[in-house]
């Protein structure tokens, strides 16, 4: 029984850990991983402060265009540990696409699940 459950969890994890989109990997994660900056943590911070995807997208775009500490949603202490970001030399279209891919990759809605709910997992 326990074995079956473990196999099920492992399978579910494999299915969910989808591949990182190249655009995100290239324009976001490479640098983040190199500097050990927690990407998902930053996403959650954005989520906690701005709530909607559109607002995050807008704010992120403006910040990446002009990455000043004052414009960042991260606490000041964050910049004591991690270096201040340099402005990206991506064109607007590519930047927007990268942001879209980044938000889509970390989208919390896709990670939420229901466990043993009396109603169906699909909301009414």
């Amino acid at each position, binding site marked *: 029984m326990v074995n079956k459950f473990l196999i099920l969890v492992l399978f579910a994890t494999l299915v969910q850990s989808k591949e990182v989109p190249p655009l995100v990997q290239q324009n976001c994660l490479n640098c983040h991983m190199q500097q050990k900056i927690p990407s998902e943590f930053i996403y959650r911070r954005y989520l906690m402060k701005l709530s909607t995807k559109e607002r995050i997208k807008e704010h992120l775009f403006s910040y990446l265009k002009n990455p000043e500490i004052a414009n960042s949603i991260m606490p000041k202490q964050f910049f004591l540990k991690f270096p201040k970001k340099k402005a990206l030399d991506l064109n607007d279209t590519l930047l927007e696409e990268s942001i879209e891919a980044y938000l889509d990759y970390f989208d919390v809605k896709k990670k*939420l699940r229901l466990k043993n709910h009396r109603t169906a997992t699909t909301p*009414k």
Partner: protein
Amino acid sequence: MIKHSVVPSVKARSKIEVVKVVRVVNFINRQAIVMLSSEKRSLIRFLIIYLSSTFVLFALGTYIFYNFQKHQIMDSQNDKLQLKSEHILQKLRELHQTFDQPLFYPNEPSFDSAIYNLDKAYIFGTFNPKKIAWDKEFYQDGEKLFYLYRMKPYYLGAVYLLVGQDLDKKPFEALVRMLVLFLIGAGVLLTLLGFFLGRLFTAPMRESIEMMDRFIEDTTHELNTPVSTILSNIELIDTLYECEGKTEMKRIEMASKTLSRLYEDLTFLKLNHNYHRKIEKLNLSNLLIERLAFYDTLIEAKAIKVVKDIAPDVFIEMDHNDAIRLLDNIFSNAIKYNYKSGRIEVTLTAGKLEIINDGEGIRKEDIRLIQSRFKRANSSEGGFGIGLDIIGQIAKRYNFKLEIISDTNQPTKVILSW
């Protein structure tokens, strides 16, 4: 002239009535707790007013109490929702700080919840109601209770946390059951109390009526013997001796007949509800002629002209004594309130008796009033004001239609139809 055939029958009936009076009085004395009709009427009126006003008061109190309790129950269920939302919020906070996959949404048994972003767009949840009252903290939709909590900070991007729960009807049902039982209990208790109070309040009236009844009873009892003696002696004198004072004798006879009728009326009122009636097919035409003959002396004394138009063999089903009381009272009034040398018209057809008499007439507004016991429109003549009451009672008992048409200085018309 005295009609010899009538006087003995009056005397005989009077004796029978006296025996009946004694029997009924004994019966009433044995049944002292039997309620008088007027007392019953007063008690019913009192109970209706008392119970209806108390019921309105209790219903209002119960309604207010029900609403108060309803709010208490709702508050209690809302508190549960609020408490559950705090649990869910705590779990959302933990989930926000969890980077493992998948993120299992907090699932509370018996409760549903959902989270919404700043644009009120659905993020996730165990339900997704179509209508949400975004401007309310607590609300009810159908049989479901909702609590909408505005979150800060926005864990998982959620700004609104909506928690829902099925309305627990059991406390409401228990409350209604309790209130119904209370109302029934209070109703029974108040009815008993009202009955007791009513009896207490009507006791003086009951005593007065009983006293009056006893007085009437004693009076009628004492009246019977002398009236019968006078009438039988007049008859004897008239038969055996040639009396010079014929006019004086007639006056004595008239006075005796008036007393006799009064005695009959009072006995009727006293025994009305306890008297056993023998309903039979009566020849009303004959009875009408017989009763008119009984009043010959009085009619002659006032020189009243009687115009009779009596159809032969008109039959009616009623008690003989009631029929006599009915006719006697109509004739008595027609004679008593007539002018000297006035006129009485008596018309009997199948299903209708019409008696018209001259006189001062009755004001239209008084016609209804004089039909009550002891009410009289004109005090110029003697009497207790019980005549029309007796006529009305008998008419009502036999479902006769009674019409009295009159006005000041107009003839009075009494129409009985059946």
